[in-house]
């Protein structure tokens, strides 16, 4: 793996804060179109066997930019888990409300996340996935999200063909309605850490550790210390923000290879 594809300190800190990271790999010409055409004609959902139905999907997972992000966030021995799913949002289908996947036994460390691959351009009309940056450390039964509809700071994944969105497993997400006449395809993959880091697995600059907390340029600081301290994507209260900071610091230290 060429280190040029690993993430920077700032990108890792932004993932910890926001719970997502987008990669636009430079895929071979025609690959996205070929995958999309095969998905368009599938007459059943093969579940975990989607990579057997469409083997070219492995070219996406094996792309150096995709692997670089995975290594940076999960270590060199990351695992591509066997569960994967083709999400085909049909034309004229309704929105899906906010939820967190799985049960409410959460892990606030960066040990597993999703990779959402979109083989076509996604427009707002096509029912994009919508995420809420900064919610990944919250443990909320999905039933209790039923009163929420639009949340300030939500991000529709209106992306270019070939984009892989890495999202923390517990990030709040839903979908908008598909009002287009096209199927919206997304393949969901799961990734997992298999070994604790003994050292940073991204392009870490030890000098960044000494960057002082800068109260005057808190919104624009690009170094990890200031990102972890000041970023507040949801605009939450002071009490929640202080708790988030503590969780972020624990994650950062964990990824550096210190004991969490």
């Amino acid at each position, binding site marked *: 793996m060429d280190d040029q594809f690993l993430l920077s300190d700032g990108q890792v800190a932004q993932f910890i804060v926001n719970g997502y990271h987008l990669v636009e790999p430079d895929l071979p010409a025609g690959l996205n179109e070929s995958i999309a055409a095969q998905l368009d004609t599938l007459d059943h959902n093969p579940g975990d066997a989607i990579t057997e139905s469409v083997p070219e999907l492995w070219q996406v997972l094996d792309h150096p930019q995709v692997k670089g992000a995975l290594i940076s966030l999960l270590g060199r021995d990351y695992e591509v888990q066997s569960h994967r799913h083709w999400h085909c949002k049909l034309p004229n289908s309704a929105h899906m*409300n906010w939820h967190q996947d799985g049960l409410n036994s959460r892990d606030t460390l960066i040990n597993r996340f999703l990779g959402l691959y979109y083989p076509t351009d996604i427009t707002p009309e096509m029912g994009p996935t919508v995420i809420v940056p900064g919610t990944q450390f919250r443990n909320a039964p999905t039933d209790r999200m039923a009163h929420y*509809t639009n949340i*300030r700071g939500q991000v529709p994944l209106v992306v270019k063909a070939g984009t892989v969105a890495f999202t923390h497993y517990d990030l709040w997400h*839903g979908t908008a309605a598909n009002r287009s006449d096209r199927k919206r395809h997304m393949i969901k993959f799961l990734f997992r850490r298999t070994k604790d880091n003994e050292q940073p697995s991204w392009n870490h600059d030890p000098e960044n550790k000494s960057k002082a907390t800068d109260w005057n340029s808190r919104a624009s600081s690009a170094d990890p210390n200031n990102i972890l301290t000041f970023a507040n994507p949801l605009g*939450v209260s002071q009490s929640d923000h*202080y*708790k988030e900071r503590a969780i972020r610091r624990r994650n950062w230290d964990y990824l550096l290879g210190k004991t969490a």
Partner: protein
Amino acid sequence: MPQPRQRLLYLHARTPSVFSDIIGLTPIEPVAGFRVEISAEALDWPYKTVHDALVDGWQIVQFPHLQAPFDDRELDVVGYEFILQKMEIVNG
């Protein structure tokens, strides 16, 4: 003779204060077939704070519950929920 119906507005505010900024907003109109949905478009938020909604005639029918246990580590739902209503004649 049309009767007033209950319009509802769920507001999730940054703090339990009515003057704090709104993080989440869900309007419920008492019209058959009405549905809310997550939008992928840029949103036009009618109110910045709960107080803005009060100025516009909404009445609070439920304030945030503050009796729940808390600690300094766990995070759960986003914001503090106010439920507001307007009783109005509504067509449809």
